[in-house]
């Protein structure tokens, strides 16, 4: 649920009492029409608040926490679990880690976290939302989120497939899984890892802590999922071409 415009106006008055709408749009990079529309409709997107907070040099997480519906975010954040951290490592970085650990004959260094291995890319990555939910799912998570929010399971799945999740659902998912609230917000790209208070080497450390077996299995799962989605895309492409060929 987006932020109520009234509460948002109060917040704006508190953090930037003298700034005009035009100023705010200019420094935060939000389109004026978008901003005006959100205010008129009475629903301000969380991304708007995050952009303005960043532009004003404020912590997006803390500012989000100053709103009633995100009050939990104001408390000192619970750090992400190792599984959550690893879920935010991009698939290609995982595969690179596998190769890094292989013997020099295969282009690796035979050890973990060699200084030669390139740094991990920042979250979010192409499938970060689904990977995050999979990392914290005990098998019943989707049902609990669905029961708590009233969002139908297929709509929830559709969001995961599109690598999206509304901030509200991300927080609800974290609550239902009993993990910290920052994981979902990072996975959906609302805030960065640094803004979430994650230590700079946390992802790399969690990755290095995986055994060879765990890493290989995880990389295998990711590759399989990637293959499935690419194949589906290729089939759809072929189907579209066929329709065009016959009816275009």
């Amino acid at each position, binding site marked *: 649920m987006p932020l109520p415009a009234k509460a948002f106006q109060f917040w704006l008055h508190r953090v930037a009492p003298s700034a005009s709408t035009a100023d705010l749009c200019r420094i935060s990079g939000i389109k004026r029409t978008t901003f005006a529309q959100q205010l008129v409709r009475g629903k301000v997107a969380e991304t708007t608040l995050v952009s303005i907070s960043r532009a004003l040099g404020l912590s997006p997480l803390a500012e989000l926490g100053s709103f009633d519906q995100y009050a939990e975010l104001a408390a000192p954040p619970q750090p992400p679990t190792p599984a959550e951290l690893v879920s935010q490592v991009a698939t290609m970085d995982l595969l690179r880690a596998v190769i890094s650990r292989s013997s020099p004959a295969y282009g690796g260094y035979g050890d973990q976290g060699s200084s030669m291995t390139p740094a991990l890319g920042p979250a979010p990555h192409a499938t970060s939302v689904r990977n995050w939910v999979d990392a914290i799912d005990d098998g019943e998570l989707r049902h609990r989120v669905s029961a708590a929010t009233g969002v139908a399971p297929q709509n929830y799945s559709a969001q995961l497939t599109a690598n999206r999740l509304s901030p509200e659902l991300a927080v609800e998912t974290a609550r239902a899984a009993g993990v910290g609230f920052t994981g979902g917000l990072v996975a959906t790209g609302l805030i960065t890892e640094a803004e979430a208070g994650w230590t700079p080497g946390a992802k790399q450390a969690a990755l290095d802590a995986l055994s060879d077996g765990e890493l290989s299995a995880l990389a295998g799962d990711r590759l399989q999922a990637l293959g499935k989605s690419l194949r589906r895309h290729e089939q759809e492409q072929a189907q*579209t071409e*066929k329709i*065009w060929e016959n*009816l*275009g």
Partner: protein
Amino acid sequence: MIATLQWTTLAVCGIVTLARVPSALRGENRSLFAIFALMTLAILLSIDAPYLAVDQALGGMNIANLVLRFVIFAAIFFLGVRVARGFSADDALKLITGPVGIVVAAAASAVVVVVFLMMDTAGSSAGLVAVSAKDDRNAALVEFYGAAGRLYPGFITVALFPAMLRTLRSGLPVLVRSSAALLALGTVAISLSLLSPVIPPSLGFMRFFFNYSAVLCLVLGLSLIWLAKTLAKRAPKKQAGIT
């Protein structure tokens, strides 16, 4: 209002047909051009003034109406085959071109011809309105004749219906799915037009509404696919690759 719908449909069909002339000359999908041309002809023959002109030339025995039925049959058959192939609807293709489809086509044609011969068809009249007004027997026969004429289009579109619904729920481009939605809507309209004989005269405009909206949906649905193809060829392809 009915006249507006009729002439709008004719205009849309005519424009789409003309727009396809260049690609037909280039040799791309000529049968699709034929489908559009046949549909335009069918609409033309279902409007009063052109119908009367054509039928007078054919002897004033309403033979133009019989021609119209077979023009529709031909257009809908080619359309059905094309759509079934395009949407990979093997089940529909088998149904349309297989024994079942041939039997339905033959039966519908036979009934149309026999009923036509049983009617007193003298005197040109679009939609056989004047024939229907002659007496009760002719009125009943005209209803039968109309129902038989809609049977085959109904059969083809219903055969394609599951494939359209499948496409609608798939992850194909939005324009392709919209066109599947329009084709499915056309199917519903054609199926509803099968109910024409039981529509009370007070709701007579509904008959026209179903008939013309069916044709409009089919033509617009097909044009959307064409539009999608043209747009996609112009814009660089968005490929989901290994990231």
